[in-house]
């Protein structure tokens, strides 16, 4: 049974609110609470924002109700009111601990994880690599895509415990110092995103996809799978099919395909937003 933090344990990147935070809301923030949660206003003014209020606010945000007050709300949600680590994330509460040694972006990591911990949660919450995103957490959106032993996989459906001895590459590991990976450059040039939430998964997926094409892998839209004549030259249709595991709710797909095609073909591709 594992007890106590391991060498790589760091303060949790998510800030939580102390149960007894003293009131220090701006006028805008007071108005926001008065509008959205009038039944809680007095309590908030009295004893400050507690976790229950915060969760309620997040629920409203999830429902899109905050849209009108988005600037104020965003500020409030982002503001570190306290740096207390929530007790449920302290490693002492690990059940059925498993020791795992793996290499993440070139660095050897050794940690003990709850057997239930996914690779995604381990990256984000234990190793402070928050580039990989939790979209659906059910393997349907691709936002959590990382590259394990050279293959793109879904980190939300991978148990950290099963990563013993494996090599993990995340979006944080693609650039070399300040030199962006060509795929990252291309996504910038082609504006391959809007909100950016799916982008780390899109880019990791795209990088591994080009490797698969180099190995001559086929796809469902490959005309004749019996012909495997070395590296596959991908049409835009091929890229779309091969990227279908990465959903972009902003709908930046034409730009994403252009970005990937440019790196794949090695030739400049016209930016979609200029060609219309």
């Amino acid at each position, binding site marked *: 049974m594992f007890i106590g933090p391991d060498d790589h344990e760091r303060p949790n990147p998510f800030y939580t609110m102390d149960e007894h935070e003293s009131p220090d809301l701006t006028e805008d923030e007071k108005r926001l609470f008065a509008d959205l949660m009038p039944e809680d206003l007095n309590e908030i003014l009295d004893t400050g924002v507690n976790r229950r209020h915060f969760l309620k606010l997040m629920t409203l945000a999830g429902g899109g109700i905050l849209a009108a007050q988005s600037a104020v709300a965003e500020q409030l949600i982002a503001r570190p009111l306290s740096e207390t680590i929530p007790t449920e994330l302290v490693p002492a509460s690990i059940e059925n601990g498993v020791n795992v040694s793996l290499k993440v972006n070139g660095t050897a990591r050794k940690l003990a994880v709850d057997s239930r911990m996914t690779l995604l949660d381990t990256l984000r919450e234990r190793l402070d690599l928050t580039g990989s995103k939790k979209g659906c957490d059910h393997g349907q959106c691709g936002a959590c895509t990382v590259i394990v032993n050279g293959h*793109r*996989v879904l980190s939300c459906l*991978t148990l950290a415990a099963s990563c013993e001895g494996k090599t993990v590459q995340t979006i944080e590991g693609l650039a070399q110092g300040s030199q962006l990976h060509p795929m990252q450059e291309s996504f910038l040039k082609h504006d391959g995103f809007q909100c950016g939430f799916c982008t780390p998964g899109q880019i990791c997926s795209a990088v591994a*996809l080009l490797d698969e094409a180099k190995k001559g892998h086929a796809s469902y839209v490959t005309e004749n799978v019996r012909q495997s004549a070395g590296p596959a030259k991908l049409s835009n249709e091929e890229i779309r099919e091969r990227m279908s595991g990465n959903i972009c709710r902003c709908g930046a797909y034409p730009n994403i395909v252009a970005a990937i095609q440019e790196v794949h073909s090695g030739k400049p591709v016209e930016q979609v937003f200029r060609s219309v």
Partner: protein
Amino acid sequence: MRPFTYTRAKDATSASKLLTGNPNAKFLAGGTNLLDLMKEDVERPSTLIDISELGLSDIKTISSGTNKGGISIGGLGKNTDAANHPLIRQNYPLLTQAILAGASGQIRNMATNGGNLLQRTRCPYFYEVAMPCNKREPGTGCGAKEGINRMHAIFGWSEKCVAVYPSDMAIALAALDAVVNVRNASGQERSISMADFHRLPGDQPEKDTILTHGELITSIELPRNNFADKSYYVKVRDRASYAFALVSVAAALETSGNKIVQARIAMGGVAHKPWRALKAEQLLVGKEATEANFKLAASAEMADAKPLEHNAFKVELGNRSIVLALQMAMNGGKA
């Protein structure tokens, strides 16, 4: 997710022994379906036995036995590797197509061949623990039978369950007369034909296959055949990619001139198991490979369909998909 203990298995036999000793233990291979079901609280194993590093991933030509000259695919090999292996692409392009029609690049990189066969249904009533489901909790009833059953079965369903089986790979394997080799904790092996491997729901929809607890899929064998030139996998779904089939058809023909010598047709998205369209196959043998004959065979098969309230469209869709798959098989992938 509920707590569970995690064990990395050292070899196949000890893995099976560990599983046999604990009725609530499960094998973990790719995990793409199992972990999702655990997050949904549908699967509640007390122990996971990780078999993903056991090897059993070779793809090779079978050198002896009934399937000599065929291909053996390791149960723990990845879907991506099976789909792209030169022996499979060249000799069983139908299997390559079917695998590549399923899931996404990421999931195919994780999912194993044995695990693919053991996927659970994606019936929403099975996934939602607040709903009744005889497959998830025997005796609670079937929410889908009189509920929203657009995605559900039109063949072989029972009063207890109308769920469909989700795999694409298995549909091609059924058409190709594949054999599944399994081994238990005592080291005993048995070979199960794809036709017998999955079950119809009957009174026990909780049982998807005839495997017993502790049996491990070691390999899948594909017998030699003459279908490589004329085969095709058609998948019809709600979007162009990354969705489960409404209806899919794996079709394979062997012809002499324009005369059909042998025909294989298996359907996905229509039943609790890969549905071999035996009636259509029998009608095609000895006939000319013409559109008219394809239509006759398809409508004979689909005449037996028993659609539910919301999925009558699958009957006509199945009809047309069989004809299309046969045409594309004849025309090298062109409609």
